[in-house]
Every structure is written in structure tokens, then in C-alpha cells.
């Protein structure tokens, strides 16, 4: 891949990327979430077209306008989220994308071929089973066989181990080595350092859409990779005033929370946050942060453990009760959760407060007060909007986020929970929002900040917890020298005692 660039609505996802893969090797593609790994691979698989640059195979330029083209050139991809029809059998799913499939009853004739491939690569699979009966590991094998049967010489695996158990991961790696021995090329996208070191021959590190490092895996260790991935040795840029931390605001005691698939994704997390403090949760997303936040804000059941706010137990109370008790929440995916996009600005400005006495009596909303309040919110929090009578979806992401933050802060909550508050925002809005969080801290509030952006975490937080697979790998003060190992902790390979 030569000089590949791609941007989405002005945000550069890939900038001038040059990537090559040689025969008989496994290449690791390492980077934090949002570093542009998946975008780059989707370009190689033909799902996206690059804005500039081109792709060469064996020295020849090729055009990849769709996955059909890339399949013809021997490129196959296994996505992080499987693309299988749940109610169909394995054979039917494979027949669906198979070019040499028979016109009628394709699934019958294909069984033989599937079993051949499965023997050749030790990929055990039963073609008659329906996909919903399969474990994640088995479904992944179906995807791999599907790609191989379509003639893939180059196989792209996007975060393949994120859905697997450790035994399944070991099996997968054996399969991959077998494929490599038989001459296939493999690109493995991951943010887990150990995996890359274990299975890859070479590693390329992406950061903010650019390649920041390349190395044979024999020549590097975990610390090197962590540094390359995060882009620096840990830098402190403390602009915040020192604060005496005082009263305890919230105390979370050993909570266990289940995820959407009924698995425990938060397994016994405890922490306290004090007034005048920002407590940060670092970690790659998908390690239980979202579920933990939802449990604290009353959107998800706590299976066991206790959450105390001041002196009251708020475990498993309703979202409205918890909000009224003083826990405000800036949700992740601001448009999906934080606003009703089709309603006006002034409707959204009171989303969680419309039942408060200052905006309504028992039945009616006091629109005059609400509009006045919205005007104040817009000017206090620098929200740029043509007027308060526009649909909220017409605002830019940064302005929507300022509106949400303003709404949540304006009631001076004792605890503000902010999930990825600056994700996807431009520099100006990011800076503004961070300052607001610091202001909240100064005014005596407690802030729980969940972020993947380490710069943000370092800049704002007084204490930092690193979360990995539903647990804290350690809690560090902002000046703790061990912060330089935060990359290892995020990847789950270092746990601090106590």
C-alpha cells in the first residue's frame, strides 16, 4: 500500500501510509482505538476507497472498488464483528459468498469442500450446525474458512482475539501458524502487545492515522511497543492547580456488573472519589468501562457490591433518582444517548431536568423559563447555534457536547461522570471541555473521567485507575513514576499490588 490517505468528513483517518507485507509472514498492526487500523484494512479489503494513494500486488497497481475485486486478488478479511446469518447453517453461510457455489441447493455440494479445508488447516467445524449454536471461536473459524475458500492468500484479521477465551485464542494462533506454513500472508490488527509479540513476525505501529514505527518483533519488547503505541514516554503537562482533596463523595465497593451478553464484564471494582478531585479511568474501551458507568448512573443493574453517594445507598436506584441525588452524566456516543436529535435545542437543554420545579409544575412545562435557561446555557458554555429554535442534530459534535456538558454541570452535581467527553472533537472544543472539567474540580465537584485518550487522562486527573477486562490493574497518583508503565497495564500484562 503506497501513500494511502483517507479522511471522513474532514477528519483524517489515514495519512500517507506505506505498508508492505512479504511472503510467508504474519504482520501485526498495532495502535490504540481510533488510530486508523481498521480504516486502513477496510481500504485494503475494498470497502473504502482511498482519497489518494494506491495499492500494489507483486509490483502491479490494482484497483479495489469493492470486496468483490479484492477477493479476486486473493484478499480476505475476518471482521471484528462477524458477518454471519445467525439462523442459517454453517454450510449455507459459506455458500452465500462462495463464487463457485452451485445454482440450486448450493449448501449440499459445498459440505465436502468445507470439510477438506477444515482438515487441511485443522479448523474444526460442523457444516450442519446453525450459526447461533456456535461459540465465538467457532464462528470465527467459519469466517476464516469462508475467506480461505474464496481463495484468500492474504487474510486480514481485525482484533480476532477480542471475543475469544484464552483457550480459543491459543487454538486460533495454532491455526494461524499452520496457515503461514502453507504460504498464506496474514495481517493481524490488535492493541494487545503480547499477542503481537507471540505470533507476528513484523509489527507496524499506527498512531492518529500515521505510521509511527516498524520493527521485526524479535528486536522489540513490550515496553518498546507500548511507548510506540502511545507515542511518547509519559509527559506531564499539569496546568491544574493543586487541590486539597477533602470529603468523600462517592464510594464504589466491589461492584460486579453484567454486560449485554449476560457475562460479567465488571468483576469487583472498588474506588472512592473525593471533592475537588478528578478520578480517571484509563484503558482500551470494551474492558467494562461503559458497563461500570451505566451501573453507577442507574442505567444497568449492579449484580453485587454497593455504591454509596455521600451517606446514601444508591445501588440499583432508578436513573432519575440517582440524577436527583447529584450524579450527572455526560454519556459516551453523545448523539445516541445524550440528546433527542430531532427536538429543538431548548427541548434538549432540559432533557434530565424537565421534571424539576423550576421548569414545570405537575403537568405543564414552563417554556418561557426553559427558553431563558437555554439562552443562558448557550452563552455560559460557548455553544454556537443559530438560535435555540433549531433541531439539535444541526449542531456540530463539539457544540452538542458543550450543550450536554453545560446541561449536566449547570445543576452543580456532587459527582460528574464523563465518558470519552472529547472523543472525535476538534482541538478547540476539546480544550474548552477539559477546562470545564477542571473548573468543576475547582468548584468542589468530584469528577469521574473515563477516557481512552491518555493525554487527557494525564492532563486532568488527580488519580488514575487502569481498567483491563473488568478489573483495575492499579490505581496511581498523577505523579507516580510507575505511570510510564501504563501501556503495559492497559494491555493487561502488568498489575500493581495494593
Amino acid at each position, binding site marked *: 500500500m503506497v501513500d494511502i490517505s483517507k479522511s471522513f468528513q474532514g477528519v483524517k483517518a489515514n495519512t500517507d501510509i506505506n505498508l508492505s507485507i512479504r511472503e510467508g509472514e504474519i504482520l501485526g498492526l498495532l495502535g490504540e482505538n481510533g488510530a486508523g487500523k481498521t480504516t486502513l484494512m477496510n481500504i485494503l479489503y475494498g470497502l473504502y476507497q482511498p482519497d489518494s494513494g494506491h495499492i500494489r500486488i507483486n509490483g502491479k497497481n490494482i484497483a479495489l472498488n469493492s470486496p468483490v475485486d479484492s477477493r479476486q486478488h486473493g484478499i480476505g478479511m475476518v471482521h471484528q464483528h462477524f458477518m454471519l446469518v445467525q439462523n442459517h447453517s454453517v454450510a449455507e453461510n459459506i455458500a452465500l459468498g462462495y463464487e463457485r457455489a452451485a445454482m440450486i441447493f448450493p449448501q449440499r455440494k459445498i459440505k465436502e469442500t468445507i470439510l477438506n479445508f477444515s482438515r487441511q488447516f485443522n479448523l474444526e467445524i460442523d457444516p450442519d450446525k446453525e450459526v447461533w449454536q456456535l461459540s465465538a471461536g467457532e464462528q470465527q473459524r467459519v469466517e476464516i474458512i469462508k475467506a480461505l475458500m474464496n481463495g484468500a492468500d492474504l487474510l486480514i484479521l481485525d482484533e480476532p482475539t477480542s471475543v475469544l477465551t484464552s483457550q480459543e485464542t491459543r487454538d486460533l494462533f495454532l491455526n494461524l501458524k499452520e496457515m503461514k506454513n502453507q504460504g498464506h500472508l496474514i495481517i493481524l490488527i490488535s492493541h494487545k502487545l503480547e499477542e503481537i509479540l507471540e505470533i507476528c513476525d513484523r509489527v507496524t505501529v499506527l498512531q492518529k492515522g500515521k505510521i509511527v514505527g516498524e520493527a521485526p518483533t524479535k528486536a522489540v519488547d513490550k515496553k518498546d511497543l507500548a511507548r510506540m503505541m502511545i507515542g511518547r514516554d509519559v509527559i506531564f503537562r499539569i496546568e491544574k492547580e493543586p487541590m486539597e482533596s477533602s470529603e468523600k463523595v462517592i464510594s464504589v465497593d466491589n461492584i460486579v456488573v453484567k454486560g449485554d451478553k449476560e457475562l460479567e464484564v465488571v468483576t469487583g471494582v472498588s474506588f472512592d472519589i473525593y471533592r475537588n478531585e478528578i478520578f480517571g479511568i484509563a484503558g482500551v474501551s470494551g474492558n467494562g468501562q461503559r458497563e461500570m458507568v451505566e451501573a453507577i448512573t442507574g442505567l444497568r443493574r449492579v449484580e453485587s457490591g454497593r455504591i454509596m453517594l455521600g451517606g446514601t445507598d444508591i445501588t440499583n436506584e432508578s436513573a432519575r433518582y440517582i440524577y436527583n441525588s447529584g450524579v450527572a452524566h455526560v454519556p459516551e456516543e453523545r448523539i445516541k444517548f445524550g440528546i*433527542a*436529535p*430531532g427536538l429543538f435545542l431548548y427541548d434538549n437543554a432540559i432533557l434530565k431536568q424537565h421534571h424539576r420545579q423550576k421548569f414545570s409544575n405537575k403537568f405543564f412545562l414552563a417554556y418561557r423559563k426553559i427558553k431563558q435557561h437555554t439562552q443562558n446555557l448557550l452563552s455560559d458554555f460557548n455553544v454556537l447555534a443559530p438560535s435555540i429554535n433549531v433541531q439539535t442534530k444541526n449542531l456540530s459534535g463539539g457544540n452538542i457536547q458543550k450543550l450536554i456538558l453545560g446541561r449536566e454541570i449547570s445543576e452543580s452535581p456532587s459527582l460528574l461522570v464523563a465518558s470519552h467527553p472529547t472523543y472525535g472533537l476538534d482541538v478547540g472544543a476539546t480544550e474548552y471541555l477539559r477546562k470545564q472539567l477542571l473548573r468543576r474540580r475547582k468548584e468542589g465537584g468530584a469528577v469521574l473521567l473515563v477516557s481512552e485518550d491518555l493525554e487527557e487522562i494525564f492532563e486532568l486527573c488527580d488519580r488514575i485507575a487502569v481498567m483491563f477486562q473488568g478489573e483495575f490493574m492499579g490505581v496511581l497518583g498523577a505523579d507516580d513514576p510507575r505511570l510510564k508503565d501504563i501501556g503495559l497495564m492497559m494491555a493487561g500484562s502488568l498489575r500493581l499490588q495494593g
Partner: protein
Amino acid sequence: MKIKVTDRIDILPRHSLLSLVFSLAAGLLTISFIFMVFGVNPFYALAKIFSGSFGSLYGIKETITKAIPLILVGSGLALAFRAKFWNIGAESQLLMGAIFGTWVGLNWGPHLPPAIIVPLMFLAGFIGGALWGLIPAILKIKFSINEVISTLMLNYICNHFMTLLIVGPWRGKTKHGFPYTDDLPASAALSLIPGSRIHYATLLIAIATVIVLGIVIYKTRFGYEVRVIGENPEAAKYSGIDFFKTTLIVMAISGGAAGLAGVGEAAGIHHYLSYPESISSGYGFTAIIVAWLAKLNPLYVILSALFFAGILVGGDAIQISLGLPAATVQIFNGTLLVFLIMGDFFLKNRVTLRWRSQRN
């Protein structure tokens, strides 16, 4: 060639109006072709429809009569559709209202004066429609059963239940074996504006319903919660709105409003129960289009209800004068709905055609 659909973000009121005008025009144009298939001059037919409904005193009176149930059902549906609860079962909620109201009228009517029995009948009708509307709401919230299917299926159940009543236990002794209930006692029959079939009690209730629902949707806490749920259920959950309670109330009101219309039809027009299709000529379905044309604003429902009532009356007129089949009116309504929904799509999305760019 590639078709690209993107959100249109700058929708102004005049765009809404334009889309409405274009949709109606395109709908009428398409209907004109259908008239031509029958060998009828479309201009003549359309003129006939509108002169039949709005061109004479008789026509206007009939149009208002038919607009009464459409206003009631349509404004209730506007509320349900605001919450994105796709209630396709207003037809049977209306019939349940008629059944409950008629039972009260038949059994208590002979002993009570009109000032007491009439409100009681409307109350019973509201309860009947509301209960029937609550069933799909509970099914949806507790068991995630799609409300389109359940409301639609409940229509059939109610239809046959009503038929069972009139051929079985409720068949009237005075009806010589015909499958009708006995006539409602005089005290339970709604009085009419002289020289017309306009049962004004129901008309007043309909207008009151429109005003109340208009205030509820735009001015109250409850209406605010309904709009948030309809716009973004995730945000509603996040902001602590009680989804269960709100949906139940929405469907109780939506079904109840249809039930009121049922009482009006039974006690104002027919004075007894007979087959479901003669009690309601598809008002529950036509009202879906009424609510949609009104952009789910109860106040506009009055206008769109009059418009579709006019088409129903005018349709009857052209059936007789031009010899067109009875289904013409339904085709007319269906075509308009299709074009209204298409117009809405083009209003909310910007569609561009692009020839595939040649690379390399």
C-alpha cells in the same frame, strides 16, 4: 450509477409545505391514470369528488359527519405515532368502544335520563378502546412483540368477537332474526343537528380531544416525555423517563380516543350494533393517513380529517354517478398515503445520483 442518500439538515417550514403540495399533486396525478384506465375523464372525476363533498350543503353535512370519527381516531394516532408506537389497530379500538358503549346504552339506558346515560356511554367506550389498546402496549414492553403485528391481529380478533356477539348472545328480540342488537333506547341515542346526521355531542368531544391533545403534546411534561421517547428511546432511558408508564398512557389515550369515535358511530348513526364493517367503514385505517397528513399535529388533524372525509363522501358520489367500483376510494386513499410517505422521505433525506467515478 450510485444513489446516495444523506440526511437533510436544513428543513424549513416552506420545504415541508412544498413536499406536502408535491406529494398531493403527484398522488392526484397517479390517481388520474387510474381513472383513465376506467375510461373516465380524470378532471371530471376529481371535480365530481370535490363537488360531491364540499359543493353542496348536503355534501358538507355528510363530510362533517364522516370527519367526526376521523378526527377522534386521527388525533389519538398522532399521539401514538409521536411515541413511535405504530398503532395499526385503531379500527378495533373503535369497535371495542362501540361494543362497550352499546352495552351500557342497552342495559342502563331505559332507566336513566340522557344527561347521565350519554356521558356514561362515552366513558365506557373510552375504557373499552383503552383496554384494547393496552394489550399491544403490554405485549411490546414486556415481551418485545412488534406492535404492528399485534395491533393488526387484534383487529381480526375484535371483528370476529363482535360478529359473535350480534349473531349470538346480543341478537335483538325485536330484529326478526337479523344479526343486529336491539335499538338503543331513545335516551341513549345521540341527538342530531336537525336536517343532518351530525351527532354534535361527538363532534364537540372530538374538537375538545384535539385541543387537549395539542396541549398535551406541546405543553406538558408528559408530552415532552412522549416526544423524547419517539425521537430517541436511548436518550429517554438515559434521562430517566419511565418507558413503561409513558407507553401505557399513550396507548390508553390513543385507544380511548378511538373508542369514543366508536360510541359516536353506534349511538349517533346506527343506534344498534351490526356487522363490524357496517359500523365502521375503515375509519381506523383511514385515520392513519389523516394523522400522517397532519404531520402528527392534532390541530392539523381537523383539516386532514375533513379532507379525507370529503374523499369518502365524494367517492360515494362518483360510485353512483360514474359507475366506478367501490374500491376506488380505497385506492385513492392508499395512493395518497404512499406519496405522502415518499414526500416525507425526500423531505428528510437528500438524494443524489452519481455516476460511478472511473479510477485508474
